[in-house]
């Protein structure tokens, strides 16, 4: 923020929203990394802990919404303030969705814990999660520091996550074709991979919000997308 408002409490209100989002982001980051850990270690206890913890994120999102409504009614913000206030519920909503995906991963962990590990997929998912976690961390950093370049960088990094998802998708398809018994865990892993990929998309969305908040311009160029799974087709023969 360039300068302080003449009305001090306006600054405090805006700061409050920012704090709530940072707090949400902190929980979300933690849940991403923990869900990956739980999956890798087949730790159902940790998974249960994550599922329980998601409620806090939901509560924070509701709190952000309330704060935004109050600030709109009381302050009629303009320009950068208006943008900051308007993007806040969107960012909160994105973060909440990311939290939901982490929760979903945790849920699937308890099923996967009973099945055979499928190749190196858990490690790949772990790597994807680390990447997404970094993206979330950086995009929140960009949000707090009003750093447009950093937000744009996060947006570009989503491509890597997409590519890893593509690779894993092919890999898991192959496993399923090889061994029908692997279908169940592979399906779960596929969904997990998709979840992480979606987390990346939501992070990208947050990056776009930050970009708008800082510059006042809405991204019109296409977002870099490398998730080709929707068009991927593998011939059963090819695997044999």
């Amino acid at each position: 923020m360039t300068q302080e408002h003449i009305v001090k409490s306006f600054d405090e209100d805006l700061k409050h929203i920012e704090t709530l989002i940072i707090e949400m982001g902190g929980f979300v980051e933690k849940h991403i990394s923990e869900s990956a850990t739980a999956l890798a270690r087949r730790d159902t206890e940790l998974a249960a802990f994550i599922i329980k913890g998601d409620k806090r994120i939901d509560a924070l999102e509701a709190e952000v919404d309330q704060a935004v409504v109050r600030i709109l009614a009381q302050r009629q913000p303009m320009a950068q303030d208006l943008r900051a206030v308007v993007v806040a519920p969107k960012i909160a909503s994105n973060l909440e969705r990311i939290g939901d995906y982490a929760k979903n991963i945790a849920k699937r962990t308890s099923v996967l814990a009973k099945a055979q590990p499928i190749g190196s997929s858990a490690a790949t998912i772990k790597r994807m999660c680390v990447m997404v976690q970094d993206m979330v961390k950086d995009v929140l950093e960009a949000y707090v520091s009003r750093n447009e370049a950093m937000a744009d960088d996060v947006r570009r990094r989503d491509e890597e996550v997409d590519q890893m998802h593509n690779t894993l998708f092919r890999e898991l398809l192959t496993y399923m074709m090889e061994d029908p018994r692997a279908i169940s865990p592979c399906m779960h892993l596929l969904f997990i991979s998709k979840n992480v990929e979606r987390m990346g998309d939501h992070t990208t969305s947050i990056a776009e919000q930050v970009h708008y908040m800082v510059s006042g311009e809405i991204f019109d160029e296409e977002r870099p997308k490398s998730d080709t799974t929707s068009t991927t087709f593998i011939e059963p023969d090819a695997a044999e």
Partner: protein
Amino acid sequence: MSAYALQEADNEVMAAAKPETEPLIAARNVNVFYGDKQALFDICLDVPEKQVTSLIGPSGCGKTTFLRCLNRMNDLIDICRVTGDITIGGKNIYDPDVDVVALRAQVGMVFQKPNPFPKSIFENVAYGLRINGLAGSKGELKDSVERSLKQAGLIDEVYDRLEAPGTSLSGGQQQRLCIARAIAVEPKVILMDEPCSALDPIATARIEELIDTLREKFTIIIVTHSMQQAARVSQQTAFFHLGYLVEYGATDTIFTAPSDERTESYITGRIG
């Protein structure tokens, strides 16, 4: 909605006649001095026809001074000197051959405080028509007065008491009476100098609604201290600061993503 459609149609007609719509009012390098003190510096501003243009800025920034240049109200102040060109419809209003009385009949003005004449409601509106020779017969005069009152959205409230003194109306009604008085002489441009600053929110809303409908027929320039009001009623917004025109553009842009830091500070309520 209909206003918008009409305006679109208008624009099409004009586009057919000319390749590009010219602004109705064009200010070029306008400098205003009060004695030795310079109040406005090199103002260049194009005001599009049949739109609402709002002038905002902190007190003493020169927005009212600029507004008063447009109908040469500043002539009344002995020490005031204006340089530069202001053209309305292609004619420089500071040319020596311009009759200021004729100019003011074309560029009406509504003031900060409602200032009806201490005469009847009818006389208030009829006065401009009479002195400018716009009403032939008594019947014509009555029709014109009623039409103006209707345009100003006041007719239903005063229909049965046109002979009552204008000062007996409420503040908001008085201001609409002043608007009726201004539009009665059918000017091209209406200047409004903080027309709602003395009114309550309901009366303000009525005036804003009125401004929105008047846009069909008139080019309106409004000075306001309420940024929300500028955002609500205008299509173009100009931000003045310390005698300079800092930023001018579409209202949507100015209030969501201004490009100048001073505009940003002012409209977000920061110490600028």
